[in-house]
């Protein structure tokens, strides 16, 4: 029969050693986690010359596997195509980042923002205004 005391003593030694280690706890609302540089969080529409870079080419809704992006094209004063409506449903989004990869004009990016909780279902559909990059 193996000696039952040695493993217990070893275990006790390990647990006692842990007492003197620095806790790994992150005091979450007070302390913020550092998200990775390429973390895929909430989307942002990039801004250039005070308007969104998006040209409403429909590549992002096409590539989106979750079908969560709604785009409607409009025409501005210079007869340029722009996104009159750009919405992402965060309840459907799977944060795969394909939309960012697909974008031919580099108009879309993903931020480190991950606190997307809300009180009403409608609030999870992010409109163009809410998606615009904050400078």
């Amino acid at each position, binding site marked *: 029969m193996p000696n039952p005391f040695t493993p*217990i003593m070893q*275990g*006790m030694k*390990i*647990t*006692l050693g*842990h*007492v003197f*280690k*620095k*806790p*790994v*706890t992150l*005091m979450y609302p007070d302390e913020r986690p550092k998200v990775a540089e390429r973390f895929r969080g909430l989307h942002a529409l990039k801004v250039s010359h005070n308007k969104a870079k998006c040209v409403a080419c429909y590549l992002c809704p096409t590539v989106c596997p979750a079908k969560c992006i709604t785009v409607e094209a409009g025409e501005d004063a210079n007869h340029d195509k722009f996104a009159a409506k750009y919405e992402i449903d965060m309840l459907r989004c799977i944060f795969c980042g394909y939309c960012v990869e697909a974008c031919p004009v580099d108009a879309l990016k993903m931020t480190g923002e991950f606190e997307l909780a809300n009180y009403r279902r409608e609030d999870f559909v992010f409109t163009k205004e809410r998606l615009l990059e904050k400078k």
Partner: protein
Amino acid sequence: MGIEILGLPLYYYIAMVAKVLIAFVFVLLTVAYATYAERKIIGWMQVRIGPNRTGPMGLLQPIADGLKLFFKEEIIPAEANKFAFLLAPLVALIPAFITFAVIPFGDTIKIFGYDVPLQIVGYYDAGVGKVVDMNVGVLYVLAMSSLGVYGIVLAGWASNSKYSLIGGLRSSAQMISYELAAGLAIIPVFMLVESLSLQEIIKAQAGMKWFIWNSPMTFVAGMIFYVATLAEVNRTPFDLPEAETELVSGFCTEYSSMKYAMFFMAEYANMVTVSAVMVTLFLGGWDGPFVSAIPWLSPLYFIAKVYFLMFLAMWIRATLPRYRYDQLMHLGWKVMLPTTLALIVVTAVAGHFGFYTFSGLFGN
């Protein structure tokens, strides 16, 4: 000698009431802060922080928990036996506290010119020149610790729920199995002291001759006693009665509010009590260095030892997983019981040849 009641001086009664109050408040506070200490210590051992939101370093956590439980709804299941259901938490709690009546928590100290022994049912007899206490103190401790199981069985049965019933049954089976080993493990101590009085047991260990290291027989007995008491108060690794994964919450599944808290208080009070009994029987009670010169040190030594044993229990809880039921029964009946029986025989034989202690074994 002033007024006498039933042949004892008045100050004896005043001192006794004071000692009851002090001991009760002390145990109650220890129970409250043992929950906090346990959460903190287990937190640290798991490289966490533990409670730290209520008050500085979370020190108000037990008060917050108590208040929360007071304001919770009292639920009595429709199918429960109401009387037994209400009675069970009390039956579990009272024996846990009542054991402290016989445990000496300090030497005899002089207060306002009176010799007061720090033991609730003890008084200093100036005529004999020694402390008189209950001469079957250990039996009283064993009796009271066995009463605790009734509360749990009653709770399990009165709840009229299958989880509660199985939890209660497991608990009673476990407590009865391990009480045998715990009771038998004390016998070598009696054989050496030749008395059941707790004062005599402490006196026999005076001058750092504590049983845990003074004699090989009592060393083994002390180890077995500690493990058996862990099982008796349902601490991990023997916390099968409340095995969440199998039994929801065991015998207290149907309890809510303060009645639920009373089971937890009983569990922690039992932990304090068995630690105190262990200290008295094997760790020299209030004995320690310089205690004969400064008797006020004795309660401090006692508290320090009790707290150390409680820390040990928490440490064990943070380390060891729960026993399987058949392993538990195997350990109780096939390992610990024969070992204690053999130990009694060995103690008797060794005593016959005068080899009680380590020094007796290895020459002086």
